């Protein structure tokens, strides 16, 4: 365990730094490495300084934090449901967040209120999906996934309705939010706080999650207080997702792709996978957002388009392989 932990952090920490540097260097205007170095050292031209430190850095940090949170949320949900297909987006959490955000936008509320409404929507959706899927027994993975997919479809209908009745001037902002958009993120630090806290909490819980992944009965026989642990993960995953969605909107599939890739490389120890998912999710979303800013520059793509284009094939591949 120690070895794969060191290997994972040894690879992913430098990669995270590199991803953020790439995000700083590329955009509508590319900044050569020498100039970027100068800006970081407090020198460099005024234009470059403003571009890098005031526009790109907060955005890169926001993308990284949100991606990290989505990665951890996916990894936690997959353990809770013992199913590698679980993901906040697939389970309809992001749909609930979108409805909350659109309602706030329609009411003409501030950007901050939109975030809070998104947070509330994600939590509401979690309660609905997990509550309905729980039923009388435990969370059977199939029932949970189906409930999530159907609830997501329901949110989709509400979203279409809201778009249909919205004034035309509001539509572009709404659409961008729906597809996931980092450009609204101004203050990345609360999300970073949550991310650090979550990783610190996940480390001591990791071994318990390893045991829980073998089923609730087996875990109980090995000394895990199953119910309290399950509720902790459930609430944590909901809060984490809501925090991420509040930052970047309905970005899908980060929580699906990242833990899956990392498991292939570093094995299945949750003490490795959870912190690695935080870094891996951060790297993925930072790079995806950089791509979204540069592909059709000076226009921007919603980052959710890029993650979905990566995520859908991965999801289908996983589904195909799981009999």
């Amino acid at each position, binding site marked *: *365990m*120690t070895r794969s932990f060191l290997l994972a952090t040894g690879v992913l920490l430098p990669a995270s730094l590199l991803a953020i540097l790439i995000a700083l260097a590329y955009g509508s205007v590319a900044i050569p490495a020498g100039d970027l170095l100068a800006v970081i050292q407090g020198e460099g031209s005024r234009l470059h300084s403003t571009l890098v430190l005031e526009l790109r850095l907060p955005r890169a940090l926001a993308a990284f934090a949100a991606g990290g949170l989505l990665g951890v949320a996916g990894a936690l949900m*997959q*353990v809770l449901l*013992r*199913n*590698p297909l679980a993901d906040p987006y697939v389970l309809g959490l992001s749909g609930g967040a979108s409805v909350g955000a659109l309602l706030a936008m329609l009411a003409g509320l501030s950007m901050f209120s939109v975030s809070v409404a998104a947070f509330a929507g994600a939590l509401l959706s979690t309660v609905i999906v997990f509550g309905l899927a729980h039923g009388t027994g435990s969370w059977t993975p199939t029932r949970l996934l189906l409930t999530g997919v159907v609830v997501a479809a329901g949110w989709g209908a509400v979203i279409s309705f809201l778009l249909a009745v919205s004034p035309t001037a509001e539509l572009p902002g709404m659409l961008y939010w729906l597809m996931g958009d980092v450009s609204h993120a101004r203050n990345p630090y609360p999300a970073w706080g949550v991310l650090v806290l979550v990783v610190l909490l996940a*480390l*001591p*819980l990791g*071994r*318990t999650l*390893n*045991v829980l*992944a*073998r*089923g609730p*009965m*087996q875990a*109980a*026989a*090995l*000394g*895990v*207080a199953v119910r309290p642990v399950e509720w902790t993960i459930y609430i944590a995953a909901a809060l984490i997702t809501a925090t991420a969605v509040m930052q970047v909107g309905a970005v899908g599939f980060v929580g699906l792709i990242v833990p899956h890739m990392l*498991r292939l490389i570093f*094995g*299945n*120890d949750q003490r490795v996978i959870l912190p690695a998912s935080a870094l891996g999710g951060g790297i993925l979303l930072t790079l995806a957002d950089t791509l979204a800013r540069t592909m059709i520059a000076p226009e921007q793509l919603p980052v959710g388009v890029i993650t979905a284009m990566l995520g859908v094939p991965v999801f289908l591949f996983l589904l195909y392989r799981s009999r």
Partner: protein
Amino acid sequence: MPPHTADPQRHGDPHAPGFESVHEAPRPDTLLATRDLVIDIPERASGAPLDLTINPGQCWGILGPNGAGKSTLLHTLAGLRAARAGEIHVQGRPLPEYSRTRLARELGLVFQKHHDGFPATVLETALIGRHPYLRPWDIETAEDYAQARTALAWMDLTELEHRLVDTLSGGERQRLAIATVLTQNPRLLLLDEPTSQLDLHHQVAVLDHIRGIARDDRAAILVLHDVNLAVRYCDHLLLMFPDGKACWGPTRTMLVPSALERLYNQPLGVGEIDGYPVFMPRPD
């Protein structure tokens, strides 16, 4: 061990005098005792209350047809499901007083089915048996690894240490489950059909090993479907009848052919090998 022999005096109606459960009062060193325990099988009438006393050095076999409640009983004894009535005492203390972690150091359970959420290696799987002994921030020590490797060696799995569990055969997976509980190293082992998927050699090897563990201060309770293996390896038997009745006591008092025939609803012939009775199903 004295050879077990069917006492001809006891043949006949299982409810006739002379075929009764042998009640033993709990001793100070008793590992597990139940008082008037009625297991809870949904939508089934309550069965006979069980007063079992499992002492160190004992190996109990639970025999009964499918659906008699054998697994439910094991799960109830391990505190994984509530009983309909009665009490369970683990080493003299009521079971509800134990925290899950504390209980997992005293009681280990091998399930009939094994779930592997995400593929892990054989060694990692055995190593989770150390979970009840580690605090949240602890990382498995060299000693924990050594215990897991020893248990894998006992179960003849050393060669497979780095294999992923989802590539194992049914029998290998079953031996791994037993190796995990041996790594857990509890004082009372509860095993649900531990030999159901094993070849003959491994059936004997596993039961020999469990019999060896259930010597001094430890004990084991095994759900078995093979009466003859139970006769060989268990010093006490609990017969669970389909109608909810139950009989228990030292093996030699329980080997009443008519009772076993009623237990399985199957005519049996009786022979003898090495001084042990051998039961063979007889087609009608």
